[in-house]
Every structure is written in C-alpha cells, then in structure tokens.
C-alpha cells in the first residue's frame, strides 16, 4: 500500500467511458507537483483509543508531501479521529491515547520531547464548521503570528494580506479588515479560517469536512482554493462527498470501522478499487 508519485498522472482511459455507477467519480487530469512526493507523515501500526475503544486500528500509511490526500469512509469510521491525531488535537479529549508510531518529518509526533504547541504550528487545521474568533478579520488572521511573537504592525499587515490573498479572500474583504469576522458569509468565514491557518506558515493543512456546512457555490470556492494550495502545502481532507474527493485529491484513503482498507492514487481507487468493500462504498451499496 505504498502509492508512488508517478501513478498520479492518469488520463481517463477508454475502458471507463462506458456508463457505470462510478463514472461520475472519474478524477480530472492532474499534474505532478515539483519538489513534493516525499514521505511527510507516516503512520506505523498506529492505533487510537477512546478509553478501551479502539477507534482507529493499526494504520500503516505514508502521506506524501505537497499532494492532496482525501480521507473517505462511512460515518463513525474514525476519519476525524485519525486526522485530529496528526496535530494532536485529540489531547483535548481526556481519555484518548495512542499506540504505534506516527512520524512527521521523521520525528515521532507522540515522542517524549515533542512540543505539541510547536507541532500544531507546523500542522494547521480547519474544522467542519467555520469558527472565526469574535474579533475583527485582521485580528483573526494576526492571532497566530502574534502568538508567535510578531508585534510589528507593518509585518502583521503584510502577513494578513499575503494569507488572505493565498486564501482567495483578499479582494472580498480588503476594505473591511477591521469589521467583525462573524459578519462574513459562511463560505467567506471558512476561507478566513484557511487564511488564519496559513498565516502561521504550516507545512501541512488538515481539513475536516471543510465544506459540509457550506452551499455549492462556497464549496466550489474552497475546492478551487485547495487546487491553488496544492503544491505548496501537504493537504489532508476528510470528506463525505466522493465527487469532491475525486475532484480535489491525488490520493485517497478509505477507512472502514477504524481500519484503513485502501490507500491508493485517487484515480485508481475510484476506477479500479482493489478491495470489494471500497467498491461497495464508492458505488453506494452501503453508506
């Protein structure tokens, strides 16, 4: 289950043009990114427990840098749990613990000398529901940089503009940076949250169902944004929408009841799944 970067470049092959249930999932053509494709995060026999309950079971996987990896699977299968484990957000849950190893840049995320605060700075996260702070747009973006000691107004302004531009939000909000962020639309709020995360210059971006609370138009914007960011950041996105997974991702992981059933290039997983369970899931035979 070690997908290689080369497998990414796929074309629609002739055999799948016939009308089948999976037709709609056919991924668009994708370019290889430059300077990426190294193992960025790697899980080895990695399990996550809530108390005695093993929510994620012995996962082995390598996430490649600068590519987009989608995580799919039925509700309750452990997608969020796995994603939140990567930047140790699960530390907030009292009886949650892990076994096995999760490496980030070759270092153990759960090692004794890991500073989870520095870790989270490297691995940013955007949540299902947009969650801007009840502060101004500017203060929302500047929150992270300020935390890490940047006080100079000019520098902050530069960071805010850069982040908002990266998040494709600058044109919409540049004239009202001092307004309360809660006044933005849902889609704008979510892009603001992406911008806020980008402002601390992470290497990895974790997105947990970032569009499930948004309408189709806002969803399209976020998807475009992910395309923009692909190649600059390693992105992991949990989604229930398989079209979305096929549209935005290069690799897809399919979880079922805590087990990583299949991890393959998106095109391959959606067209020629190796596992019967994956096939059943993406053709909608169960959910």
């Amino acid at each position, binding site marked *: 289950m070690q997908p290689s970067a080369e497998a990414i470049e796929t074309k629609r092959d002739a055999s799948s043009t016939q009308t089948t249930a999976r037709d709609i999932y056919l991924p668009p053509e994708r370019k290889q990114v430059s300077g990426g494709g190294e193992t960025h995060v790697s899980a080895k026999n990695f399990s996550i427990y809530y108390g005695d309950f093993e929510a994620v079971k012995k996962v082995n996987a390598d996430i490649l840098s600068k590519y987009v990896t989608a995580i799919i699977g039925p509700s309750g299968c452990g997608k969020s749990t796995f994603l939140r484990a990567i930047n140790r957000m699960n530390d907030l849950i009292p009886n949650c613990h892990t076994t096995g190893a999760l490496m*980030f*840049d*070759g*270092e153990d*995320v759960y*090692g*004794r*000398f*890991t*500073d*989870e605060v*520095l*870790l989270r*700075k*490297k691995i940013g996260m955007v949540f299902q529901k947009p969650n801007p702070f009840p502060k101004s747009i500017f203060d929302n973006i500047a929150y992270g940089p300020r935390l890490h000691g940047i006080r100079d107004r000019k520098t902050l302004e530069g960071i805010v503009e850069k982040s908002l531009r990266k998040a494709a939000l600058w044109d919409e909000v540049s004239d009202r940076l001092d307004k309360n962020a809660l006044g933005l639309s849902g889609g704008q709020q979510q892009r603001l949250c992406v911008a806020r995360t980008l402002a601390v210059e992470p*290497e990895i971006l974790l997105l947990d169902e970032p569009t499930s609370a948004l309408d189709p138009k806002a969803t399209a914007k976020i998807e475009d944004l992910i395309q923009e960011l692909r190649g600059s950041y390693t992105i992991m996105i949990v989604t229930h929408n398989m079209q979305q997974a096929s549209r935005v991702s290069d690799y897809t992981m399919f979880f079922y009841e805590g087990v990583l059933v299949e991890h393959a290039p998106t095109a391959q997983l959606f067209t020629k799944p190796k596992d019967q369970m994956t096939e059943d899931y993406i053709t909608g035979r169960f959910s």
Partner: protein
Amino acid sequence: MNGEDSVATGRSSAFVVTAKKRKIQQITRKIGESALFLVAATVAIIVIFIFFFVARDAVPFFEIRGFREFFTSSDWYPADDPPRFGAWAIIYGSLMVTAGSALIAVPMGIAAAICLSDVIPFSVRQYVKPVIEMLAAIPSVAFGFFALVILAPLLQNYGGPILMWTWWIIASPFLLLAVIVLSELVSMSIQDDKHRKIAQRMYVSFFGLIALILLFFVGNNLQKIEIMTGTNALNVSIILSFMALPTIVSVSEDALQAVGRDLREGSYALGATRAETIIKIILPAASSGILAAVILGIMRSLGETMVVWMASGNASHIPDPWFNYLESVRTLTATIAGDMGEADQVTGSARFHVLFAMGLLLLVISFISNFISERIVVRQRKILSGQ
C-alpha cells in the same frame, strides 16, 4: 542527556525540543496548574473553616449546659440569674415561619415556573424574567422595612377585612372550578344524554350553594378577627415567601426545561390538553428537580435574618394554638442577630456560645438540605440522560 539533546536537528523537526526545555515546560505547567488548584481549593477550605470556627464556639455551650435544655425547654431567659437557654420556642418559630412561607411560595412558585416554561410565549418571558430577577435582587433589609413599616400597620388596623378579601379572591375561583368538576364527575355515570344534562345542572346548583355558604361563613369569621400585633408570623411568612419565590421559580423552570420537547410533543399528539400533559408527563419527569428547588427556596426562608428580625415581633414563645400565625414569634436567625450585642464576647459566657450553637444548628440543616438537593439534581440529570 546529550544524546537526547541532539535529537533536535534539522529544519523539519522543529517541533521536537530538547529534554531540558521539555522538562521546564512540564514543570511550569504543573506549577501553574497547582496554583490554580490551590485557588479553587480555597472554596473547600472556607467551608471547612466555617464549620470549624462556628463549631469551636458552639461546643462550649453544650459543654456547660448540655443538649437537653436547648432542644426541649422553651424558657429563653439568657439574661436572668440563673440564665435559662431553652431554645425550643425559637426553633419552633423558625420552623413556623419557614413552613408558612413554603405554604405560599411553593404552589405559586411551581405554577409560575410551569407557566414560564410551558405557557407563556418566549417574547413575554423576556419581560417576566427581569421581574423575577429584580424580586431576587431587592435587599432583605428593604423587605424587612416594608414588612415593619407598611405591612405590619396594615395588618394591625385592617387585618380582618384583609384576610376576608384574600379568602374571597383566592377561594372563589377555586370553589367555582371545584363545583363544575365535581358535578361533572358525579353525573358522569348517567348514560342518557338528556337526563345527564338535567342532573348536572341540579348538582351544579347544589354544590354551588354549599360553596357559597362556605365562602360567606369563612369570610365572615375572618373579617371578625382582630389582629393584636402586625409584627407576627403571618406578616413574616408572606414576605419570606416572596423572597423564596425567585429561587423556586428559576430552579424549577430549569428542571422543567430539562424535560425535552419530544416528551411534550408525544403527549400532545395523543390528544392530551396542555394541563394534562404538564401534570401527567412533565411534572413527574421534572419532579426531583422541582423538589430540589423547593428545598433551596425553603432554605432561603430558614436562613433569612433581617425580615424576621424586624417584623416577627421577636417574642420567644410558642403561639397558642400552635398554628396561630397571628401571634409574634422569634427565630434562630433573629436571635443570633439580636442577642450578640448583649452577649459578653470577652469572657465567652454561655450567652455568647449559645448563639454559635444556634448558628451551628442552622449550618448543619443547610448543609444537609443542600446535600439532598444536590443528590436529587444529579439523579434527575442521570435519569433524563438515560443512564
């Protein structure tokens, strides 16, 4: 150590810090958390201290005088020689005004809470809540002043008519309702529609007559009552009930709100009226929370000082007959407040310590009722969350 230190190399592993730094981080965190814990623990320390220091000054009294006199005799002559410290009449006075206020506040409070949570539309509720909050906020000494300067003279001068009118206003709607329901119930067994209507009308006039006679008879007797002093148990009970009401209303309302929508909708869907839904479904489900509310409200009455001190008349005797609310009484709280000035603190006489004994009694009662009400609330929460 050195080996571990060298772990932190390279750009990418910037999130791994040296062992030393990690240790310092952990220690600061521990220290910070312990400091917070210490602050939070002051609450527990204060409670322990309150028990300890009140008990410390209460114990000498029981050492000198024993328990029997305090709890059984009602001769309260602390200044006499030899002094007598029979507190039964005072304890009784406390119980009496507490019971009186509960009698008024509990039905009213529960009715108001039900009304707030199930009857009144949300827009109106927004205006009712501040009223309840204001009632809760008015200082007890202001209520005491009202009781002493306004209510007491009113009761003393117009006691009879006031009692009569209160009886009329409260009793007539209830009696009317009782007459209708009773005649309906009695005539229910008659099968024939026409006959039943006639029978029902007869029953209504029959019961109605009884009710009217009752109204007039009781009203007349009430009007004849002469209240000798306005500073009496009735006065205090009325005022205390209004001080306990906000607690009862807000805690019961919380309990009622905790009963979910679906339970209500289920009952309405079966064709029950609102009153039936509330009485048969919601009240039982919220009963323990309401009980907790009642306990808390009663505690408010029992622990209240200023109103009873100013308006109960402070006569240390058991009224005759024992339920005569028109006589003056004296309560534990008022005795503590009133007698401390005369008690000799320096030599620590029995007269000083007996007041702490009373304080300890109040403290123990409040602790027990608090404990019970907390258990009740926890249990209700467990039941409602389906555990």
